[in-house]
């Protein structure tokens, strides 16, 4: 029994790491640029296809192609901010929602057209292996994904707290107008924020590829969890999103184990509803960003 619980917690933490990469991106864009990016999942999908094609055509390991997908998506983020998001910032909520939602639909359908609806997998030497720690199995590919995800989150935290650009980003997040008065160029800050958020989605995609199939709708699977994590962890709060993602992973896993395999999400959403009722600002409202 204890083994089963421990295994469930391990499974939950591991997938929570992936949720974290997606949700940190969403919360970062929301915190800094004040726009909800509904297309975040589709950027995960794009990164998965980048890693898939690099693996299928050139035999490049998805962990190596992380070095391709992250910079590519960072640049895509800069372009996205410069050519699309910047134009709707002054227009209010609706055009912003429509923009990212339309982008999501567009990317899914272009992917369907280009790549068809087939599921594509990459087989790496570590795809089907696991480390055995006593009675617990820790799948290698998921463990690697989890550790890289945590390392990237830590790097992001250092970037936000120790660099001028990071501090400018947090300043812009706290109060855009005052930040501008202090000489911070919002376009530059926003561009970097969107770029970093997409690079994280890119990392998530490449890290998923060794154990998860790529298909055009794959992003939607993860973006739902990411949005719940963002709300649970207080909108705009990077650390909050990280902790909430891990909590959700564990809650889902325990829910599947003890409530029923079709009830994992129920546990997660009960958590969300309770949080909204008791702490409407999320679990980490009032904490520092």
């Amino acid at each position, binding site marked *: 029994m204890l083994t089963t619980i421990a295994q469930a917690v391990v*499974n939950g933490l591991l*997938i929570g790491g992936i949720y974290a990469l997606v949700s940190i991106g969403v919360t970062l864009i929301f915190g800094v640029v004040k726009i909800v990016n509904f297309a975040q999942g589709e950027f995960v999908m794009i990164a998965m296809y980048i890693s898939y094609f690099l693996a299928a055509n050139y035999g490049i390991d998805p962990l190596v192609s992380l070095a391709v997908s992250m910079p590519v998506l960072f640049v895509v983020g800069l372009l996205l901010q410069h050519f699309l998001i910047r134009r709707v910032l002054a227009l209010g909520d609706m055009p912003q929602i429509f923009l990212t939602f339309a982008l999501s639909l567009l990317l899914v359908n272009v992917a369907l057209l280009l790549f068809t609806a087939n599921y594509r997998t990459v087989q790496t030497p570590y795809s089907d292996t696991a480390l055995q720690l006593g009675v617990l199995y820790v799948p290698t590919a998921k463990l690697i994904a989890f550790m890289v995800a945590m390392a990237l989150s830590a790097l992001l935290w250092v970037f936000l707290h120790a660099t001028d650009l990071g501090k400018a980003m947090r300043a812009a997040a706290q109060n855009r107008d005052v930040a501008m008065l202090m000489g911070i160029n919002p376009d530059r800050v926003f561009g970097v924020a969107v770029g970093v958020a997409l690079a994280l989605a890119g990392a998530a995609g490449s890290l998923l590829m060794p154990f998860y199939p790529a298909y055009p709708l794959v992003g939607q699977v993860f973006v739902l969890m990411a949005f719940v994590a963002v709300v649970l962890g207080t909108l705009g709060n990077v650390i909050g999103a990280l902790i909430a993602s891990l909590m959700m992973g564990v809650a889902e896993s*325990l829910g599947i184990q003890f409530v029923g*395999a079709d009830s994992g999400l129920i546990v997660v959403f009960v958590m969300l509803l309770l949080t909204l009722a008791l702490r409407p600002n999320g679990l980490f409202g009032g904490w520092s960003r």
Partner: protein
Amino acid sequence: MATTGNATLARRLTRRDFLKKSAGPIATASFGITRKAFAADPVNVGGLYPVTGSFAQIGQGCVNAAKLAVEMVNAAGGIKSLGGAKLNLIVSDVQSDTTVTRTETDRLISGYKLSAIHGAFASALTLIASEVAERAKMPLLTGSSSDQLNSNRRYTFTPFSRASQFALAQLQMSKLVGDTPKVAVIFENTAFGTSTSTGLREQAPGEGVEIVMFEPYSAGLTDAGPLINKVKASGANMLFPVSYLNDLILIIRAIRQTGLKIAINGGSGGFVIPDFYKNVGGVAEGLLGVAHWNHDVNADAQKVNEVYKKRFGEFLFEYAGGVVAQTFMIADALERAASPDPQKVRDALATLDVSSGYAAMGPGGKVKFGPTGKNVYAHPVGVQWQHGDLATVFPKDDARASLMKS
């Protein structure tokens, strides 16, 4: 509106005419001697397959197989009782769409002097095509497994096992892992998942199969780890996932990752085609399934498979192999009917009784249609992915390879 419709029809007819006219000289060129000896009119056989839309992958394979089969019949001298008449295949794209299937079946029957039709493989499309064919009194052979095709029909013939036989075969296959199989059934909580799994559960006691876990899950898994953790705790040695592909891939991987020794049988479905292996790769190795036909069941099937593989670069899969057999059944019926008249061909199909040759190259090795149009000898086979190929492992009489332990 009417003008546009007519224009389209005219254009289509012209293109068909062109193909027909150009096919003549080509056929004459390749079979010159035979043509001179027997100047019989060709016999038209219709093929209804989706070569565009969501069923296109399988549909295209069926068309390839149909063309190959017609070539084989003609190269062997055509229909001898009709003066060596050649078969002439007329393919129509039903576009994976029920409405198009209805109009195309109609158009094919009224536009050409057909002797018989085969096709549509997908149940939703075949049910429509069969309705239209029944009304037009046109014999239809199909690889579709829907049991509905065997009620109130006179012109529809189903040479292969029925959907109702598949669940039974799947349960019987669990004996492959031992005398007391412990089965875990995990199914997505959709109509498809619920109905399929209920069928399995109801028939399990009759087959002496113990179901130790019966669990629905939310389709669209992010992680199969927790679910497999549960399967592991149940002590099962055989797993029936009733899942679509993405969940299936995650389930298989989670099983490998937890080091769980368990056989996986996915039942019948889209994973017994070459494309499945091409897409998911090594993940498929060892996966069990149920099929109504496989390319290794006998020597004739293997022979056709070699030719098909050389030409199209992939093995002859379930439905495509069935189409080759169906073409030879039609040829056999034409031979005995000695007439291209669809009514006579229908009667000849109803009395078909073959136990050798390409027409009989299915599981069971015999074809004879009962009063419901069902081949009384048909049964499904258990298959397993082994080294990128699909090998028949069940039942014993049909098995061409031993079970690969996973």
